[in-house]
């Protein structure tokens, strides 16, 4: 019995859901970032699965772009975190609600 595409997609769905719940539940901004990465990886996994299932190399290329964008996002996000946490050590994502208008 070999795993079909559906298996991979189910796994990706589970991974995505864990990431999404983690994003909503955790307060540490760093961990929230990691949860975003989990969600992105879930999506990447579906892309690769479909690339194989549909015989389309484009799916893999898109994964590459997702990775690049994820890298850029992490760089900027962490830079923002650094500058926030430097001013308010131990701040959580909820504390940033102070910025609301």
């Amino acid at each position, binding site marked *: 019995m070999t795993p079909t595409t559906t298996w991979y997609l189910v796994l990706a769905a589970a991974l995505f859901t864990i990431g*999404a719940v983690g994003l*909503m*539940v*955790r307060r540490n901004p760093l961990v*929230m970032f990691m949860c975003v990465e989990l969600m992105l990886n879930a999506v990447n996994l579906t892309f690769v699965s479909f690339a194989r299932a549909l015989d389309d190399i484009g799916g893999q290329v898109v994964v590459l772009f997702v990775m690049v964008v994820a890298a850029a996002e992490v760089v900027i996000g962490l830079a923002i975190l650094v500058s926030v946490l430097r001013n308010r050590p131990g701040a959580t*994502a*909820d504390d940033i*609600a*102070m910025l*609301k208008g």
Partner: protein
Amino acid sequence: MLELVWLIPALPLLGFLVILVLGRRLGDPAAGYVGALAVAGSFAAAVIVFIGLVDRPGDDRFFVQSLFEWVPVGNFSVDVGFLVDPLAMTMVLFITGIAALIHLYAVGYMKGDPKFSKFFLYLNLFVFSMLLLVLGDNLLMTFVGWEGVGLCSYLLISFWFTDPANASAGKKAFVTNRIGDFGFMLAMFLAVATVGSIRYPDLLTAAPGLAPVTATALALLLFVGAVGKSAQIPLYVWLPDAMAGPTPVSALIHAATMVTAGVYLLIRTSPLLAASYHWAPQTIAWVGALTALFAATIAIAQNDIKKVLAYSTISQLGYLFLAVGVGGYSAAIFHMLTHAFFKALLFLGAGSVIHGMHHEQDMRRYGGLMKLLPLTAGTFIIGWLAISGVPPFSGFWSKDEILAHAYDSNKLLWLVGLVAAILTAFYMSREVFMTFFGRYRYADPTPEEIDDAWVSRAVATEAQVVDARAAVETARTEVGANEEKVAKAEAALAKAQADVDAATTASAAVSAADLETARAAVDAATDKNEKKAADKALKELEKPAKDLDKATTALAKAEAALVSARQATEAAAGAVAEAEGSVDEAEARAGAARADVAANTPTPTLVDLRNPPVVPAGIEPNLSHDVTHRREFHPHESPWQMVVPLLVLAAGALVAGFLNLPFNHSLHFLGNWLHPSMLGNEVELHSSGITQVLLALVAVAGGLLGIAISVQVYLRGVGNRAAIEQPAFAHGWWVDETYAKVVGGPGRRFFELCAWFDRHVVDGAVNGVARLVRMAAGGLRTFQTGYVRTYALGVAIGAVALLGLLLSKASF
């Protein structure tokens, strides 16, 4: 070579950008040369394109270059494209050529101005806009250029905006032009609605098939635009005020280029005019003819050298409209071309005079400048002869052609044109004679200054009275002081007399015998003590006599002091009398001076051009310092940057007429060249050759008549100037005042009604919407907690909803 056409507007744009970025660093005069070079390059490009166009066969001289699609809206689209044909090329050549000369001129004229580079920035932008206007291949491009020149005109008229008069002149030009632009915009909308395109090629092909109503409406709406831009009745009022700008601007914008845009537009769309009802072109012709006459009457009574030229421009533009109205399109272009030469020349000449005369613009204070500014005078005279229609100068040929067309169409139009031509010759001669001939009047005190001198003399004598009164006061104080001294001296004398009396009594009491005895006692005394006592007794006895001596001396002194004090008092009293006398005298003088002021004002304001004003000897020292400065001032010829353009333009004014000689068809160079652009709509002259010659002779005779009257009145001093310079003319028939009254009175109430409607109905709707949004937002903002995780939850719920939707819609 025609593909180079984009270069023509691109070079002034480049110049504009360079000056925009580097202007301040380039400074004076480099920025000016950059600007002049850009326009000169544009002229060179125009020449190349022109040669390319000439190379083509006559009926193929029509070239459209589309740069890019600009406004694509459904089936309707507007390109940024250039249309090159003989008409556009003629305009481009004279615009760039004359603009280049004026740029060069401005380098000399604006020297030392703190905003030097900004001036050339605006000038280049202006040339760019004008070229867009002329070269654009659709109405919208022309409109962009149209508004561009309007903007630059505004910026340049109010260039010296620190003077409120200049700033408001700029606003006036802008607002007046807006009224005309309204017509232009409506014409564009109508063209889109009826023809479906605003490209000239489409419009011109579609025009013959249009319903006469549509064609008339289009033509007249464009005419409304042209009336604003080309300063015709009733929207001409901005142009005379536009003289507030620096003179190169007046020459470039308000004589040679921008104001011709309206005429260009009408000629460009001539098929529309041809397809409209007969009365439409007739209206245009009448508006033109009446403007020509009306402005000419105003011009004869102006004293500002530039105002005369401004009204002259309006009048000449009236001729152009007259020509357009009677179908003489190439005649109109011909006159536009010659006018561009001689009017630019006249304006630049006037600028040279103003430059040489320390920014004095009142012709009454010029006179006799021929010797002082020979080059300016010589070129100006060429311009004068050209505009007056004296053969063989250029104006003669072009004006004659227009008059011949007018004669063909309607004799009355011709008559109005002829009268305007006579008036033109008259007022231009007046300007020349007042400026360059006759007596040098700059050093003369003006009537106002003489009046001021009388007043200042009266003021000075009043000051003398005050001084004399002060002197009397001083003298009286002196008298008082001396009288006190006399009193003291008298008291001292009385005391001294009393002392003398007392001493006399005392000395009488001492007898001579006692004295002897005392002396003997002194002699007899042997003992030391005795001798002392005896001495003492003797001194006792001698004392009264000594006291008497002393008192007598004091008495003599007191008497002397009294005498001198009395003398001083008398002298002071004398001084008082004298000072009082001088007060009377000063008062008499002041009274006389006041009487003089009353008797001598008003000095006649109509300046006697031939005889110097009488300056009564008494007030000579009271003349203001301005007069002294003017007496020491020597007018100077302008620098080469200004003289060279004058010479070139003078040559143009001299020979431009030969471009279109009427003698036979092949000499009609300009007409033949322009022929393809007229699309067969031009009216051919059908008068016989003899009639044309007779008309020309009448026109020349009219011009000479105007000059002759002017010679009599302004050179020989025969006749009454006041009778010619009517107040109605001098005030421009009070049109400005009437406009102000109408717009300020009933107009204002109407505008206030509009403003009320805008505030309460239009703004009310807008504000109501805004209030609604704000209330809704006030309710919705409570959802904005600021918690990122709550937002994420919101996104997740949205995703769930989407998935649910997808699942329910999906077919399995």
